[in-house]
């Protein structure tokens, strides 16, 4: 019996940004993500409502996928941030905070959405043009002759995630390892188009961070230590190897949806097994020493191969296939129905067993120099280890981005305050022209500028979570924080350097609180003093894109007139 349920009509919200419910949710999202920002950010425990596994994190790429909302606004912002993170890894929180603050500030400025959007778009252009200029003052050229800046860049990313619970020394060690892995993944002497290698991450829980290391070649986790008695005495190097991407479990996995009709006397299992053993014999004849399979290998075949002195490893997983192919030059065999062509075989230099804590790993040494390396990460507990793994992969990606654009931006909030000061000053100069172009009054234009700059400064101020005051220096427009109890007179006493470490406090410099009005000024370029190196750097490419994503998403949000929801 069927029943007709009356459909409820769709729900339409007019001017969603004026709706308090939606504003509260955006506010909450801002608090949630803002409190994660930076090296002293707070962690979030993510779990489901029936008491599942708890993930403790402050990383946007882990936190955001957990968030789902009935409010399309929240989901839209979440999706655009996640898209940014999936392409650039870094600056996800920056983009989210900037986007949400910009929406809030634009609403506060009481401008019409139309004007706010135009101004924001224009100012975004101002920012990106400035950032891409050669003489941009918050940009640092990366020098690949020295690893100094690369390590600084890596350390800034690693230290921005307190969930890893690393000491100062451990942070530096991990940063160096990531830089090392990054450098190993750049092939040395290949003519023509160069493609970067791969870094595989292997984690070992319950082992101190100091044991983390980078190995050229591949480390493969093995569960069945019994199978490895023969590894030690492999006389012939290089070793011939083969890798299967097809399942060798002995089942009809290729059957998919089809149907087979069989005579009851037919025994497919043993027929497939015969075929597998045939394959095994071929491997023995071809003098293969290493037999790997992405999926399951039938135990009888494993037994056969091992009894002929072949090292057998099954269940490699899809993630290891690409690096393995690059390392060995093998071609993955996708079927067991043809003879394997000669060129499908690969070679490894040597194999050895590595033991780390409770894990046994098979180490495949590269035959010649190879761009494949393995980063072994150790940490005391699972929560910290999984955060460390995410952070290291992210850091490596950030380093790779520098190959496209060898620059970095000053970190510690200095880029944001500097940009804000620059934008303020520049818009002041062009206020009459701009106002007429956008078809608004000069006051309106200036309100829009103020909202934009304020949002940038808010991101800088969001780095602090202990109630400290944010200051901006009135010469170079760098950013610093002072503890809340510092008294005005000895404010300079309570800090010595700005956020990025390039501007030193001195009695001659003037500072003012970030949230106060200051007379716009043109930030003077820093004298490039070689003794002072920036101690916090952000990825240029990631931040530039994050800036664009944030402003564009905010503009889209401001532009939404109706939200129509099907509530059935």
């Amino acid at each position, binding site marked *: 019996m069927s029943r007709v349920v009356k459909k409820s009509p769709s729900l339409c919200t007019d001017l969603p940004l004026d709706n308090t419910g939606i504003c509260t949710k955006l506010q909450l999202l801002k*608090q949630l993500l803002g409190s994660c920002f930076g090296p002293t950010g707070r*962690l979030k425990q993510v779990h489901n409502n029936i008491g599942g596994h708890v993930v403790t994190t402050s990383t946007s790429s882990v936190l955001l996928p957990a968030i789902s909302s009935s409010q399309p606004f929240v989901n839209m912002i979440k999706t655009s941030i996640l898209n940014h993170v999936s392409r650039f890894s870094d600056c996800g929180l920056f983009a989210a905070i900037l986007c949400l603050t910009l929406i809030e500030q634009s609403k506060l400025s009481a401008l019409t959405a139309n004007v706010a959007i135009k101004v924001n778009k224009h100012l975004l252009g101002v920012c990106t043009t400035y950032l891409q200029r050669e003489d941009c003052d918050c940009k640092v050229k990366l020098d690949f002759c020295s690893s100094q800046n690369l390590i600084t860049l890596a350390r800034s990313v690693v230290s921005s995630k307190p969930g890893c619970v690393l000491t100062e020394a451990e942070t530096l060690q991990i940063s160096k390892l990531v830089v090392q892995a990054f450098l190993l993944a750049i092939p040395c002497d290949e003519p023509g188009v160069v493609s970067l290698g791969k870094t595989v991450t292997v984690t070992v829980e319950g082992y101190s961070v100091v044991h983390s290391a980078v190995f050229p070649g591949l480390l493969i986790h093995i569960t069945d230590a019994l199978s490895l008695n023969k590894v030690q005495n492999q006389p012939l190097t290089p070793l011939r190897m083969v890798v299967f991407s097809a399942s060798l479990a002995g089942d009809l996995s290729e*059957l998919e949806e089809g149907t*087979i009709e069989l005579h009851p006397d037919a025994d497919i299992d043993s027929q497939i097994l015969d075929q597998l053993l045939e394959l095994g014999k071929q491997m023995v004849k071809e003098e293969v020493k290493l037999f790997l399979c992405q999926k*399951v290998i039938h135990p*009888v075949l494993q037994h056969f191969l091992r009894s002929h002195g072949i090292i057998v490893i099954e269940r490699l997983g899809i993630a290891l296939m690409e690096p393995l192919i690059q390392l060995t030059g093998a071609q993955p065999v996708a079927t067991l129905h043809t003879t394997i062509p000669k060129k499908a075989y690969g070679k490894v230099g040597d194999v050895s067993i590595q033991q780390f804590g409770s894990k046994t790993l098979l180490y495949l040494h590269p035959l010649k120099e190879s761009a494949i390396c393995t980063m072994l990460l150790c940490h005391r507990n699972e929560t910290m280890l999984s955060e460390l793994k995410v952070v290291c992969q992210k850091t490596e990606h950030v380093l790779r981005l520098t190959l496209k654009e060898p620059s970095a931006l000053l970190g510690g909030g200095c880029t944001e305050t500097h940009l804000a000061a620059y934008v303020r000053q520049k818009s002041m100069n062009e206020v009459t022209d701009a106002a007429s172009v956008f078809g608004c009054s000069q006051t309106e234009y200036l309100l829009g500028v103020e909202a934009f700059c304020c949002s940038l400064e808010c991101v800088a101020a969001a780095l602090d979570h202990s109630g400290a005051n944010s200051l901006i220096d009135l010469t170079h427009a760098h950013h610093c924080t002072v503890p809340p109890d510092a008294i005005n007179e000895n404010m300079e006493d309570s800090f010595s350097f700005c956020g990025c470490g390039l501007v030193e406090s001195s009695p001659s410099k003037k500072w003012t609180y970030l949230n106060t009005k200051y007379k716009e000024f043109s930030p003077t370029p820093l004298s490039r003093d070689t003794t002072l190196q920036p101690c916090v750097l952000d990825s240029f490419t990631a931040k530039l894109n994050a800036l664009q994503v944030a402003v564009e998403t905010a503009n889209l949000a401001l532009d939404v007139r109706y939200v129509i929801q099907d509530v059935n």
Partner: protein
Amino acid sequence: MLGTKVLSQRRHIGLQKLSALAGITHSSLGPNKMYKFIQDDINGESALVCSCFRIFENLELCCAVGQLVYDTIQAHQKVYYTGSGCLLFLAGAWSRAALECLQRGISISQIITAMSEGMDICLNVCRKCSMSIEDLGVAQSEGCTALPGLGIQVSSQASSHQKGTKETGQRTVPTIGHRRIKLSRHFCEGKSENVSTVSQPAQPKRPDIAHIAEGLSHGSVSAMNLVVKASYVQSKCNQQDNICSTFDISKVVTCLLPGLPEECACVLPGCIVLLSDEQASVAHSLKEQHLKVALITGELSYSYRHLGFSRPAGIQYVSYQSALINSSKEEEWVVRLVAILLNLEVNLILVGGIASEKVIQHCCRHHILVVEKVKSSVFKTFATVTGAVPVAYATQLSKQCVGTGLKVVIWRDLSSRETKPSTAVNILTSGNSGLVTVILTSSVHGKLQALEDQFWACAYRLHHALQDRALLPGAGVTEILCIEHLQKQAKHYAKHCTQMNGDAVQHSRAGAAADHCKGVVLELLADGLIDYISTVMVNTGKFSKVKARTVVNQHLHDYNGHVGIAAKFSQLFLEGEEEDRNRDATAVKIYDNLGVKQEAWRKSLDVVFLVLQTDAEVITGIDQNTGPQDDLMLL
């Protein structure tokens, strides 16, 4: 549609929760553990638990902190089998310390830096006051009864000569034989590496397991006796040994027999399995024979396929006869299997999984004994001893896979009792494999698990002691030393800070304030350890909480750098703990595991750090239609 909720933790609820959770297990700390009943109101089931780990296993905690704690304890328990109570207690105590710091306005990053420093101090103390197990054993066997405190005595001697340890060390060498001076490094700030090599024994001495085990029993005397017996049985296997000095935990299995009084617990060489009457008759017929054995890692049934094998869905069998296709096929398979086994002359099949009824019946008929659910460690041992190669399918067996040299002995006929598997059969190797079965018995069925837990805790304590080759002075001595060092460092910071304020301007005020904070944090960290010791003392039943604290504080106060406080303290501790034993000087021989303690401390601090830095819970999969709750904000 499922949404997300955010529970923001103002007032650091997380730390308070952690502290409250830790409170649950206060009474299961120390040697005198108390049983707890955990009752499920819904289905009326209850569990009798004794250890911290089992309490958490039986509580269904769904808050994030609870889950985090459970994950941590589980990870610890999986490796160490002991020390979870200490881990949880300190997590609670230190979360209170962190709360106190926050209330005094110390920032989170400062707390973390200072607590990490404090942990380094403690771990350093552990390293320095650890004693090599070889020396402990040797000292005993040489009959050095003149040295009452053993390791502890020496370390306390050394403590009285803080700077002149080198002399102390050398002076102690002749009196106590080859004691490693490592113990006294505790007090000479790492300069004495060269000293430690002076008295390195030329050959590693074999440790005296009985002595070590006694010190590690921590109240579970009968369980530890079983461990020592197991070790003794294993040592006898190594022909030339006459004192027991080896312990291979991978070759120990337990067998639980309910219904017998606890005194019946015993240790036997070999692997004891319980068999049904039918199987037992096969075992009878195989007595006194040298058996050929096959090892099957999978299941022994027609339908079994290895892990990862997916059964094709789209296969249809087309046939003219409609009769019992499958069963006749199975019949065929069993006949073939038995033919293979008979051909290979296999008498005994050990199966990792289960065996189908049909296979067992057929095998029984041909006097082949099938033993199911064999542990993988037993597999490994039998594989190496007999030369058998474990295979996944019985049809895969060949001559090379079959091993020889096992015997079956009927250990005890329990068939008078109504329980199902009724005969205990011992599977022995003809040589000595070191495989040992510990039979645990109890007339109270619910207590068996606790007894088994206790046994494994003791076994792993001994195992880790032998692995670390070092032990810590137990009975609170290590903690006292840590407290003492933490407080010293705290005072140093406090002094440093006031001096700087006096000296004025060169140093920034921020530096002075930071030092002050560090001092406070270290002091509170030490308080956590004091709390730990005094709780253990309270659990002995001889002290009230107040008295315990006073006693600990008094001892810390008395310590002015020249009293053998450690030894003295531990004696006092024993007064409460082991009143019945003679309280001679020889009484001081309680040890703790070095690795376990360090790991438990570090893990508990890690939990505190994670919770301390957390300010919100994100709960996913919430049904949006449920009404709003307190503190929960719907995104």
